[in-house]
């Protein structure tokens, strides 16, 4: 019991004032980013979630665990009782996802909205499991936290309409610490896996990543040919930034420069690899977890 109290003392009681703007920013900006991310693929919606998609839905359905149903599964289930087209089911799931994200951004029935957004997001991603990448996992993690955190208690319609009481500093401290520890572990293990191989230390990994053909990339990889030493330096810097992230964000004087460096790294990932939404989500996570909570003043946005 003493040990538990000691841990709580270090990690929660001594956390100091936490600006609640972190939790509302996470909900509002997070939902809007996920919404725009999904809207960005709507021009190709039928290519991925169509009856005649690029890979047939039944073939995509064959390669998955059964932990989450796909649109194909839901369609099969519904058709035992009523005739409904595959496309109708797919469109319905997509519309529910969009509405739940709008509702979550507004803070209307926040918990229910977050739960629906998480489930529909998982169904949509499970249905195209061979086409998912980093940002989809980050969206799942964020929606999961939006579900368990008291995100409806600040700057939300729930708060305005139901006059919900704000959570106190201690409660917020626990949620913030869970969030921070999660991302410290994530960056640490990401850095560790890079550090264990030789390619991040000699720059070969960055060179290969720069050449991973992507139409969305802003730079031609051939431009980097003349600067191999910069590539090597960037590789080493990436490993150190990620591996030492837990220390960097825990030491007060290092926190801001570290977060700025990590944000610059994510901007570079977005620009060089064309993974814009992945970068935007990661930047948001860093800001809400390690920058916004330490705002000193209660602005109009954090009242």
């Amino acid at each position, binding site marked *: 019991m003493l040990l538990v109290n000691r841990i709580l003392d270090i990690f929660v009681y001594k956390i100091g004032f936490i600006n609640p703007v972190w939790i509302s920013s996470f909900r509002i900006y997070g939902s809007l980013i996920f919404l725009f*991310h999904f809207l*960005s*693929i709507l*021009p*190709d919606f039928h*290519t*991925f979630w169509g009856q005649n998609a*690029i*890979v*047939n839905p039944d*073939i995509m359905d*064959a*390669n998955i665990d059964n*932990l*989450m149903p796909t649109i194909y599964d839901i369609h099969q289930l519904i058709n035992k009782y009523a005739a409904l087209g595959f496309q109708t089911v797919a469109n319905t799931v997509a519309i529910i996802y969009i509405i739940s994200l709008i509702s979550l951004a507004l803070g209307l029935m926040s918990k229910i909205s977050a739960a629906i957004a*998480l489930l529909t997001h*998982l169904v949509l991603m499970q249905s195209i499991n*061979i*086409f*998912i*990448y*980093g940002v989809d*996992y980050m*969206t*799942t*993690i*964020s*929606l*999961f936290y939006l579900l368990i955190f008291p995100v409806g208690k600040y700057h939300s319609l729930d708060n305005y309409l139901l006059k919900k009481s704000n959570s106190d500093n201690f409660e917020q401290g626990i949620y913030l610490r869970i969030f921070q520890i999660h991302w410290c572990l994530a*960056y640490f*293990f*990401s850095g*560790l*896996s*890079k550090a*264990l*191989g030789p*390619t991040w230390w000699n*720059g*070969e*990994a*960055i*060179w*290969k*990543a720069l*050449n*991973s*053909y*992507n*139409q*969305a990339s802003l730079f031609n990889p*051939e431009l980097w*040919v003349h600067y*191999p*030493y910069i*590539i*090597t330096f960037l590789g080493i810097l990436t490993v150190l930034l990620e591996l030492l992230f837990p220390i960097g964000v825990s030491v007060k004087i290092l926190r801001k420069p570290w977060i700025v460096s990590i944000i610059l790294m994510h901007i570079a990932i977005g620009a060089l690899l*064309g993974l*814009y*939404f992945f970068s935007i989500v990661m930047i948001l996570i860093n800001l809400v977890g390690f920058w916004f909570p330490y705002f000193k003043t209660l602005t109009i946005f954090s009242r």
Partner: protein
Amino acid sequence: MTRETYVDFFDKKSNYFDFLCGKIIRNSFFQIYGKYSGLETGYGFFGFNVRSTGFVINEYCGKTSNPEFNSLEAENRYGSLRSLYIDYLKYQFPKNGKANQVDGILEDYLDLVLKNVSAFSMRGKAVDCDSVLTGYYILELPKLVDLKNGAKLNYELLPVKKFVYAIGK
């Protein structure tokens, strides 16, 4: 998960700790929690090594024909599939020299996906020829260390697998 990938990637001997970790992460509770919380991802993005870039090229009537998308996001998603095909190398060159049954099924699955993508690329095109040649290639590029020593930048496409599909007129 990082440890498991490490052992597999560097061909290390696994110990009791690895066995225990494997048991835990394959436990159904952990798997369900991992799926719904997003923890299943691990965090080794681009870890150990970055995968080589692969391309699917369809040749039809002497011209290349590839899937066309209307958004950059769709291009990114298609990029994920292209990186999945690199598993062909794992199936074609198994570590102990013998392919196992599961790998064989997974390879067949990739063949099927490749055929679907090829058929998608041909949609809406005039049927002038009776077959399409689909190939999966890996982009071979000089190492950074060679570039430092003055090597020229030459890109090469190495074929990994090729198919010929007949088109019914």
